[in-house]
């Protein structure tokens, strides 16, 4: 499947898809989207890159082992739940704070951290499966 066209387009396609996945992740709270879908998009982006250019460049590009990314996501989500601990509210209560960032009002919440954790879990798990399968393709 490594045609010249595919190989040339793949990096751009991948970066666009990753960017889009982050966009989908962040808009998730109010528009269709969210961590799960975003994670799937990013995972397919990496899978495409892997099919086009081989697995080694993907592994280099994401630097961490995908399973470690997944574990980090799970950790992040668990931490997001525990933010409620020092605030003396039940586990997983959504906590919000407002930030003013160059005059723009920004709502940040533990829910967002949780969703980012979901994103990482999905990206990591699916990417590691896809990459492992692609890798075995050659040996």
């Amino acid at each position: 499947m490594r045609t010249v066209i595919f190989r040339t387009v793949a990096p751009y396609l991948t970066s666009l898809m990753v960017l889009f996945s982050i966009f989908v992740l962040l808009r998730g709270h109010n528009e269709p989207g969210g961590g799960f879908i975003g994670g799937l998009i990013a995972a397919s982006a990496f899978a495409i890159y892997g099919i086009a250019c081989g697995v080694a460049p993907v592994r280099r590009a994401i630097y961490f082992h995908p399973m470690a990314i997944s574990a980090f996501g799970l950790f992040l989500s668990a931490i997001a739940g525990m933010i409620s601990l020092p605030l003396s509210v039940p586990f997983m209560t959504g906590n919000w704070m407002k930030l003013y960032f160059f005059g723009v009002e920004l709502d940040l919440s533990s829910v967002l951290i949780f969703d980012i954790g979901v994103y990482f879990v999905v990206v990591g798990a699916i990417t590691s499966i896809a990459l492992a399968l692609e890798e075995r393709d050659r040996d």
Partner: protein
Amino acid sequence: MAAPDGMTIIALGLPFIAALVAPALVRRLGHNAVWALALFPLFVFVRFLEFLPEIAGGEAVTGGFQWAPSYNVSFSWFLDGLSLTFALLISAIGTLIVFYTGGYLKGHAQLGRFYSFIFLFMGSMLGLVVSDSFLMLFVYWELTSITSFLLIGFDHGREASRRAALQALIVTGLGGLSLMAGLLVTWNITGVTQLSLLVGLGEEVRASPFYLMALILLLGGAFTKSAQFPFHFWLPNAMEAPTPVSAYLHSATMVKAGVYLVMRMNPAFGDTVAWETILPVFGGATLLIGSLLAIRQTDLKLMLAYTTVSSLGLMVMMTGFGSEHAAAAGVLYLVAHSMFKGALFMLAGNIDHESGTRDITRLGGLRKLMPISFLAAMAAALSMGGLPPFFGFLSKEEIYYGLWHMDAWSVLFVLVAIVGNGLMFVIGFAIAIKPFLGKEVETPKHAHEAPFLMWIGPATLATGGFLAAVLSPLFHRFVSSPMVSAVTGRPEEITISLLPHIGMPLLLSLITIVFAVLVYLKLDAARAAIAATLAAIGWGPDRGFDQFISGTVRLSRRVTKFVQPGQLDIYMTATFAAVAITLIAPMVIFDELPALPVWPADAEIHELAVILIAFIGLGAVISAKDRLTAIVSLGIQGFAVALIFMLFGAPDLSFTQFMVETLSVVILALVMTRLRLSPADHRPTGQKIVDATVSIACGAGFMLYLLSVTEVPFRSYLSDFFIAYSKTIAHGANIVNVIIVDFRGTDTLGEIAVVMVTGLAILSLIRVRPGWKPGMLAENDPDAPRQEKK
């Protein structure tokens, strides 16, 4: 529950912080890091010391915070005499052990890691004894098992260490499961999840039909942890660990967790026939067997290990005997034992460290070379033997006082206690006298006194045994009496002091001593006799454990061979046939088949077009010439379904469906190329018919199921709730997302954990190479012979 008090939280968390910083400190400072590290447990000790006056006044200190109030789960602690004494012992002996380790493992390459494990254990054990909520108790209980596993297997290069570590983990881990079940049953009986509330519910617990079940399950936890017969075998094997571990975990603290649990349960579970039979019988058996086996050993550490087993048996026996004096004796003995046994273990380590051997038959005359160790050993042995002026004397008097009644049952246990105590007396003095007195013997290393770091611990503990006895009124007021009150559930006062009361207990003490001296003089003959008996029996629980493990492995291999013959198509057929049956069978049996829907008259042309696409995809799958085409055609059908979701107002679902469909086509294609199948699919006709039947049944099952679900009138209160509150309390307009990450966040947390674990499982399945057999070393196994890199 009182408001959480910051200092106590810090004290409970401090050992874990120490575990984090220990490796870095040791890397910087070498073994001198002990001076900094010892401050951590010292702080904890001082913190708990501050509670003494309050607890001695008969109060209990509680604190903590709610964790998941809807399940009545909290992180809460509860300090009464029992937990406070334990906390003080853990932190005080912990401080001494930190010192001792600095000397014992000086220059060891993994000293930092060792400290890390020790502190992890200290934190877990502290948490265990102050836990109020069941969940917290269980979590800390398991943590002590895990840290014990890490410490026993510390020297993981040796097979014996690994086996001992695994054995301890399996035995105490099984006990942990039993404990969990017991706590759940108790929760079911009483409806409370806090130990502090359990005390007042004794009547209810004892009257329950599930009393015996709860009792046996809880005791399963306690007996495995505290190495009661027949689970005693893991403890002597655990002596594979470095000596500081043996002194700390496997004599002074962790193994007493079971005794702690029994004492904690006493007010609620005690005072029944079952309690007063099971505990003394198992405790007494453990006492006898442990002390007899101790006589057989010649290795100092093993002798001590078996007497630890017998001491634990004695404590369980006394706790279960059912009188205030017996409970008091258990408490006093527990405190005395922690001090003298901790000291003796460290001294055995000193002898080993300085002379190069722990074999008692190859030691002698160290008195002049190691004077401080000798003095400390004598003091500890006097306490162990129950002689004045040491604390062990008080506890032994109280033991006989508690046991002595004029009935056959009591006389039996008095005899058991005399034999057990006598034999422990023998071992104590064998360790304190044989290596030190007599002729100087050639040892592998030329012995000299151990460094300060190594004698300060045993010397402090031995002195402690003396001071506690001399200052007994003070000690009883602040430590023993509150602890006994906690064990019996009523205010009690201990009065026993060094002044002997002429009477039965004193006489029994004298009998014990005479018996012990006789055995001591004939020690070699006794050792040979017991060794011969054991050889004649030829089987023990230790062997049994191996047989159990290999039996389990064989059984699981057989089961695996049966359910997993290794044919993928059999798995697939079985799985999908099971799915079809579970879907269709209940509907047929209960006659709940749904009515077939009518064709909607208002179907729009584009909706029909989408359905047509789905059918085209289906046709393409069936008629595809090669596998790759079939997989891609499956995608057509999936996209059509995603379009239907989109048309009927579920953008999130459709979005996800698109992505899942894309990825599954990609992954399926990769798997297919991986399997090196022939490009086209050639199945015999019979196989085709079976497969077609199964898949049609599956599809029909799902259709019928969905139809019958939609036939049930739709109750909208859940969606009404989400629509009403999504924006107002969760600040999100996308209801689906708000449900996933907020309203049902805990579910999602579980689900993503599953996603991750599934990924991990698939990853390791992909990595399995053909030709791999169970038991083969993996490539990254540290024990595999290193291969030179080319």
